[in-house]
């Protein structure tokens, strides 16, 4: 519980703020809240369902079938996660909205053809699904890597096709991973601000943002409502998931399903998904970057004129997010042990707190940590606006991402191995290092990867809590986009994707492969 205490900081802050102001109940019970709340719920559940379907299918295709190009796809599929949602939304608008790039490209062949309007629910749903499916893809891929092939082989022998095998054998075995990933998508979606703001879908986060300075008491009360909603959903989901249990069977060499006549369809699906979620935004960014480079710039801070300005942000981004990934995994691992091996109320409460932190907007996390550090005496107060606090804030905000994969990782260690080592006189630490950790590596790598990719693009927390003069790629993208320097914003965003690709390969793909 001590480990989970920092994760309670943002919610505790909101309770303090809300209690200070009074009159809160009238705000929260206001009918004006119901609309945004309903829209947040609708968007969260639909995006979670869509991302679960897309992410699971993609994971199965690249992990278990003979799909051509699956090795490359494995590296590329997690990457949309690193695109800040406001960049994804802006690129979508620039490309597909009326008069946008696609219409202009099409005008010679289809003059006067107009694309449907981009925005509202459909726009937010599309952008968020395309950017968040990796939350499902990564844990499901990790799970599929460990599944025994025997059941799929039996299914195949009984004459089932690839889709039949997928539906009757793979899906049930991966359902814990799917449910866990879907929950993360739900929480991400209800906390997202960038996409809903640009695409004009009026959710709870937009109400929080609009009120944050005009009426901070209302903003705090609405944030608290968002946090409580997240906890209710987490607890509810845990009850259902608890019955499902964690499937830990593993072993054997994974089976490769021959797609046969489904090959083209599978290729079309993965190719289409990558085109929409990664290639299209990157193409828009590339277009802006090339246009800006051709135009040139005399601005002293221009990245077109001096790409060397990106070295420091790239290093800062990599270091802060990689350390945060390690810290987050280390922080949630004990909770994962507690919930998987002991199944107590304590573990469940810690679980809910950690997960709730993911549903709060970054600005709330940042202000809460500012409040608590500044109101603490001594060494802790001295941490304000230093790198350790920034890393801690990332870990608190994104710890939930590490929890699901860590839990699967813990469950994948057979108890009898541990017992055997104990009989042989190995100590607790030795058992952890020699047995548990090596077996858990693929799961922990997936956990770290999720935190890493999210921390790399995090904006409000970075802007408010990083040491002064600590630029990251995300802050560079934001700063340039604020000023409409699209070439600069694009160059920094492209580098963000490139760096995340390298780190994903090093930490997630390579680690995972070594154990398959």
């Amino acid at each position, binding site marked *: 519980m001590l480990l989970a205490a920092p994760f309670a900081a943002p919610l505790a802050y909101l309770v303090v703020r809300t209690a200070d102001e009074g009159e809160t109940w009238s705000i929260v019970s206001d009918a004006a809240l119901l609309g945004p709340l309903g829209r947040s719920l609708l968007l969260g559940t639909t995006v979670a369902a869509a991302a679960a379907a897309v992410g699971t299918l993609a994971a199965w295709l690249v992990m278990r079938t003979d799909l051509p190009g699956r090795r490359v796809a494995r590296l590329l599929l997690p990457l949309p996660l690193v695109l800040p949602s406001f960049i994804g939304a802006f690129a979508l608008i620039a490309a597909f909205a*009326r008069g946008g790039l696609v219409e202009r490209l099409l005008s010679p062949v289809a003059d006067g053809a107009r694309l449907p309007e981009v925005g509202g629910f459909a726009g937010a749903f599309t952008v968020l699904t395309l950017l968040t499916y990796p939350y499902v893809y990564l844990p499901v891929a990790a799970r599929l890597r460990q599944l025994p092939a025997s059941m799929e082989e039996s299914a195949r022998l009984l004459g089932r096709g690839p889709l039949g095998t997928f539906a009757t054998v793979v899906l049930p075995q991966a359902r814990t991973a799917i449910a866990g990933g879907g929950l993360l998508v739900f929480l991400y979606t209800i906390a997202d601000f960038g996409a809903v*703001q640009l695409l004009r879908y009026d959710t709870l986060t*937009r109400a929080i943002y609009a009120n944050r300075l*005009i009426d901070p008491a209302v903003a705090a009360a609405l944030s608290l409502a968002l946090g409580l909603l997240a906890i209710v959903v987490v607890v509810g989901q845990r009850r259902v998931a608890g019955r499902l249990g964690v499937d830990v069977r593993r072993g054997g060499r994974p089976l490769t399903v021959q797609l046969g006549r489904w090959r083209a369809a599978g290729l079309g699906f993965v190719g289409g998904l990558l085109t929409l979620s990664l290639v299209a935004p990157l193409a828009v960014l590339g277009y802006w970057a090339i246009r800006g480079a051709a135009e040139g710039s005399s601005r002293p*801070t221009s990245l077109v004129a001096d790409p060397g300005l990106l070295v420091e942000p790239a290093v800062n981004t990599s270091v802060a997010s990689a350390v945060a990934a390690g*810290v987050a995994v280390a922080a949630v691992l004990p909770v994962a042990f507690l919930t998987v091996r002991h199944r107590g109320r304590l573990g469940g409460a810690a679980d809910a707190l950690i997960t709730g932190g993911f549903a709060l907007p970054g600005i709330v996390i940042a202000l809460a940590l500012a409040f608590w550090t500044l109101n603490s005496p001594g060494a802790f107060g001295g941490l304000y606006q*230093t790198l350790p606090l920034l890393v801690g804030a990332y870990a608190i905000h994104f710890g939930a991402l590490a929890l699901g994969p860590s839990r699967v990782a813990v469950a994948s260690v057979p108890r009898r191995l541990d017992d055997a080592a104990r009989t042989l006189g190995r100590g607790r630490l030795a058992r952890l290092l020699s047995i548990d950790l090596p077996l858990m590596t693929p799961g922990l790598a997936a956990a770290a990867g999720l935190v890493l990719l999210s921390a790399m693009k995090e904006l409000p927390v970075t*802007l408010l809590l990083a040491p002064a003069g600590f630029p990251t790629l995300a802050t560079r993208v934001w700063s340039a986009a604020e000023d*409409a*320097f699209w070439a600069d914003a694009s160059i920094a965003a492209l580098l963000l994707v490139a760096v995340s690709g390298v780190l994903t390969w090093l930490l997630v793909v390579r680690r995972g492969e070594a154990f398959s």
Partner: protein
Amino acid sequence: MRRALVASVLAVVIAVTGLGAAGCGGGGDDALTVYSGRTESLVAPVIERFTQETGVEVDVRYGDTNDLALLVGTEGADSPADVYWGQSPGATAYLAGKDLLAPLPEATLSKVAPGFEDRDGRWVGVSGRARVLVYNRDQVAEAELPDSVMDLTAPEWRGKVGLAPSNGSFQDFVTAMRHLEGEQVAERWLRGMAANDARTYANNNAIVEAVGRGEIPVGLVNHYYNHRFLAEDPGLPSRNHQFADGDIGNLVIPSSVSVLAASDRQEDAARFVDFLLSEESQRYFADETFEYPLVKGVPPAEGVPAFSTLRPPAGERADELGDIEATGRMIAASGLN
């Protein structure tokens, strides 16, 4: 593999403790700390010049104007910030209302044109941002454009106007309308815009981009956004339009700088403020950000209409733009979102 794992765990531990040590050593106690709602790409060169000329090191925290105001509000007397430099008088007024700002000397305040300083001396304007109607010249002829921002509630503009209700400058504009034209006029205009199907966008950028693409013919924004879009893509059909002389739609809003009352570096902070009002810095804002210099004698950038041609409403004082809470309620009640 086992060894690699142990090594990586150790690496994380070392990194964290190393960072801790670095964190304690850093922080720059000698430096002047500026919280800047102006973005780094625009103002970093000015701040560098300040350090070169005065020898005073500056740590800058760049961020969103409103978020930084909230952060200073949360920090209170413990704030590491010495200077707060925001984009909107509304956000600065939030800090003034919490008694967090120190008064500036009269000599500093009198450098800028009257109306662009706080009468209680808690902030001074640095650069001016004119409200304009950006329009797509392929879709609307200049002659058809309205003389007053009030005309946009007329039927011929139904569904054709872009607004950014959550944007600070739009809110400052509504606050000014409440003061100069009266609460009822402002309320009627907002409701009229909502009823006229005004399209709402996230920010000024999104509006100018939508006008450039031809999604909407006109939008209410600050003047410099279109200059920046045109600098990136000169082929765009978007242009700025000014309303008739003295129209509230021509409001000029200053970005403003203030010194925090809790700062123990009042002298350096005051030097920083004066540096921003120097001719050198004012010229930089004109040429690089396309904003209006507020100190007399410095012309705006080429292609930007002269300050004297702006025709802002008479009697407008930026220090009356503080009442953002009532403005926010009025906007929310109007149905715009």
